[in-house]
C-alpha cells in the first residue's frame, strides 16, 4: 500500500520544517520526504492533501481507560480506540482498573485478543500493581511482563501502603517497566467531591485539600530517590506537587510526571451549578494551580500530557453530585485543547507539543518513538491549527460524552490519523475500517 501526503509541514520534537513537503508512505514505513514537486499521483492507493497543515509524529497517550472488560456500557476497546484515532493518537496505553482487573497473565492475554480484533490504533496494556487493585498483595508482575505489559499501575486508586509500593517499584524494575503512581492520600480525601476552595464553600460540597496529592507525591519522590528507580507520577494537578517534582529533578531523582489538558485550562469554577461533568479525580483546581501546571509544562517539570480518558455512561453522571462518577472523556479534545491553551498563547512551540504528547510518553512506557523521518514507522497525525470548532460531545466516537469542554470553542482539528501506514481516520470520512 502506497500513500502520498501532499503539502504538509513536518514537525518533530527537535525541529519544524521550513518548507512544506510531500511524504510518501509504503508498506507501513515513511519512504520519502520530498520537496513539493509535481508528482505522479496514479501510483498511490491513497492521496491525502494536507493543505499546509502540520504533519506530526503519531501522538501517544499513556493514560486511557478503555473500560473493557467489564464496563462495556462506558467504553470498549473498539469505541475507545476509535476515539483515540479521531483525537490524533496512534498509540495508547490502557489502565487495568477493569472488571476483572488486569492483574494476571490470562487477563492480559484476553485484553490482547480484544486489541487484536477490535483496536484501530496501537494499544498497550498496563497491568495492576496489586491483585484486584486491592493494595494488599503484588500482582503477578513477571508473568504479565512476559505477556507484554508496558507498565504497572493501580490507577483509579493509590497504593496506600508504602511497603507495597516499595516492593512493587523494586520488583518491577527487574522487568524494565515503570510503576505509574496515582498520587492521592485517601485519608486526606474523606468523601471530598471537588477542590477545597471558594467553589466548595459556595456549593456546600466537601473539599479535597491539595495536600492529598502533595503528600503522596512527596512519598513517591522519596521512594524513587531511595531506590534509585524510575517512578512515573500520574495526572499531576497542584502547584505544591509541581514544586516538589521540580526540586526532585534538580537532585536528579528518577521521576517523570504527566498532567492532563483540563488541569491547564479549567478551574474548580466549572463545578458551579453542580455540574457533574466537571467532577474528576484529581479535581479541577484554582487559577494558581493552572498557572503552575502551565509553567511546569514550559520548564519541563511535567514530561507528558495525557488525557486520563475516563468515559462514563449518562446515568453514571446524571446523578446527585456526591454520587456522580469521576472522570472526563478526553481523547477527542486533548490535542486541540493543548494547542488552544498552550501553543496558541505562546507558552510552548509545536515542537514542544510533539515532545510532550508523543516522544516523552513513548519513552516512559518504553515503546519506539514516533518520528516523521525517512525509515520511521508511519504513525502520523495531520493537524490543522487554524480551524475553530465548538465541542459537541454528542459527536464523539467515545461512548463517554462526559466533558466540561462541551460548548467551548477550541482551535485545531485532526484532519487525518495514520497508524502503521494505514489511514485510520479522516475528518471528512470518519473512521476508515
Amino acid at each position, binding site marked *: 500500500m502506497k500513500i502520498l501526503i501532499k503539502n504538509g509541514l513536518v514537525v518533530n520534537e527537535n525541529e519544524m520544517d521550513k518548507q512544506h513537503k510531500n511524504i510518501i508512505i509504503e508498506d507501513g514505513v515513511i519512504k520519502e520526504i520530498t520537496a513539493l514537486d509535481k508528482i505522479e499521483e496514479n501510483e498511490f492507493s491513497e492521496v491525502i492533501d494536507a493543505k499546509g497543515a502540520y504533519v506530526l509524529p503519531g501522538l501517544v497517550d499513556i493514560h486511557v481507560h478503555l473500560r473493557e472488560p467489564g464496563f462495556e456500557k462506558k467504553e470498549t476497546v473498539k469505541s475507545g480506540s476509535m476515539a483515540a484515532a479521531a483525537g490524533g493518537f496512534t498509540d495508547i496505553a490502557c489502565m487495568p482498573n477493569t472488571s476483572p482487573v488486569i492483574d494476571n497473565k490470562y487477563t492480559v492475554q484476553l485484553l490482547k485478543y480484544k486489541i487484536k480484533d477490535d483496536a484501530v490504533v496501537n494499544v498497550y496494556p498496563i497491568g495492576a500493581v496489586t491483585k484486584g487493585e486491592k493494595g494488599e498483595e503484588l500482582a503477578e508482575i513477571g508473568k504479565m511482563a512476559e505477556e507484554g505489559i508496558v507498565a504497572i499501575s493501580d490507577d483509579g486508586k493509590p497504593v496506600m501502603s508504602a511497603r507495597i509500593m516499595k516492593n512493587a517499584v523494586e520488583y518491577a524494575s527487574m522487568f524494565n517497566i515503570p510503576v505509574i503512581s496515582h498520587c492521592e492520600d485517601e485519608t486526606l480525601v474523606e468523601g471530598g467531591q471537588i477542590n477545597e476552595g471558594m467553589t466548595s464553600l459556595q*456549593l*456546600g460540597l466537601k473539599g479535597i485539600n491539595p495536600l492529598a496529592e502533595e503528600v503522596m507525591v512527596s512519598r513517591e519522590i522519596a521512594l524513587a530517590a531511595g531506590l534509585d528507580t524510575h517512578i512515573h507520577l500520574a495526572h499531576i494537578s497542584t502547584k505544591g506537587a509541581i514544586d516538589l517534582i521540580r526540586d526532585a529533578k534538580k537532585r536528579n531523582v528518577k521521576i517523570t510526571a504527566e498532567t492532563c489538558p483540563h488541569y491547564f485550562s479549567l478551574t474548580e469554577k466549572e463545578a458551579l451549578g453542580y455540574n457533574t461533568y466537571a467532577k474528576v479525580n484529581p479535581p479541577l483546581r484554582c487559577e494558581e494551580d493552572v498557572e503552575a501546571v502551565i509553567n511546569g509544562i514550559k520548564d519541563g517539570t511535567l514530561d507528558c500530557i495525557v488525557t486520563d480518558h475516563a468515559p462514563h455512561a449518562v446515568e453514571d453522571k446524571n446523578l446527585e453530585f456526591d454520587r456522580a462518577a469521576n472522570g472526563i472523556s478526553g481523547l477527542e479534545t486533548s490535542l486541540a485543547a493543548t494547542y488552544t491553551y498552550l501553543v496558541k498563547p505562546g507558552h510552548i512551540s509545536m515542537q514542544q507539543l510533539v515532545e510532550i504528547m508523543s516522544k516523552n510518553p513513548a519513552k516512559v512506557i518504553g515503546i519506539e518513538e514516533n518520528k516523521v523521518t525517512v525509515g520511521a514507522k508511519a504513525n502520523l497525525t495531520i493537524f490543522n491549527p487554524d480551524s475553530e470548532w465548538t465541542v459537541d460531545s454528542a459527536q464523539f466516537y467515545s461512548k463517554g460524552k462526559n466533558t466540561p469542554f462541551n460548548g467551548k470553542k477550541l482551535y485545531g482539528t485532526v484532519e487525518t490519523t495514520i497508524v502503521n501506514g494505514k489511514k485510520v481516520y479522516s475528518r471528512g470520512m470518519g473512521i476508515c475500517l
Partner: protein
Amino acid sequence: MNNLYDVVDLSKNEIMTILDKAKYFKNQITTGNKSFKNLNGKTVVLAFFENSTRTKCSFELAAKYLGAQTTVLTSSGSSVLKGETLIDTSRTLDYMASDAIVIRHSQSGAPYFISNHIKSKILNAGDGLHAHPTQALLDMLTIYERKEFQNLKVAIVGDILHSRVARSNIHILKTLGADINVCGPKTLVPKGIDKLGVKVFYNLEQAIKNCDVIIDLRIQLERQDSGFFPSTGEYFKLYGIKEEVLKYAKEDCIVMHPGPVNRGVEISSGIIASDRCLVDEQVLSGVAVRMAVLDMMLGGEN
C-alpha cells in the same frame, strides 16, 4: 415566588416581605386561627430523604393550616430503599399532580438537580451542606420581633464547615446589614470563609464579645470519628454555650439553635431552660415562615 433554593437569591425587600407575612401568620396561629383557605385545592408533597422532625412537621402543618392537601414521603418505608433514583422518585411524585415539592436531601445541589426533571415548584428544605433557606428566614423572624438588623452583632458558633444553617444565616444576615462573627475549632471552620464578609474566631469569649445574638449549631456527633476534635467534653469546655461564658455577650443577648440540641455538648441544659434561649420560639417561627413562603409560592386569594 418561583422556586426557593437559597436565601442568596432573595433581595432585602423580598426577605422583609416574607418576614412581614410570616409575622402576620404567627400572630394568627397564636390566637388560635389555624385554618386558612389560601392553598385550597393545591397539593404540596414533602420529599424528605434525610431525617427531620422540625422542618418536616412544620412544613406539613404549614401547608395544612393554609388549606392544602399534603403527603409526606420519607426514605424509610419507601422505594428509595429499593434503590430507586432521586430523579425517578421526584418524577413519580410530580406526576401525582403536585403543585410544589418540598425537598430535604443529604446531597448538596439536590433541589437544583431535580428541577431539570419536574414541573412542580421546588422548595429547598435543606440540601447537604449547602443551604436551608427557611431556617435562615425563621431565625430572622425570631430576631425581627426583638431587634434591628442593621449593625446587629451576631455570633455563629459550632461546626461551620458542615452547616447549611451557618451558610444560609451568613448570607441572609449580610443582606440585612448585620455584623457576623463565626467561631469554632479550626478544623471545623472552612478555609476562605472570611471572604464571605465574616470575622473568624477560634476563641469563644472573643467571638461573642458584645454580641446581640448567638446562633449555636449542633455538633454532629457522628462526625467525631473523623477526628475534627478529640471529645465532646473538650468541645463543651471550649465552645459550649453556657452561663459562665455569656457574661462576655450583651446583657440582653439572645441564644438561638436550629435544633435538635445536644445538651452538654454545644449548649448547656441551663441555657436551654433560660429565658434568653429562643429555641421553642424558633419552632413556631418556623411554621409561620413556611406558611408565608408556601403562600407566596402557591397562594391565590387571601
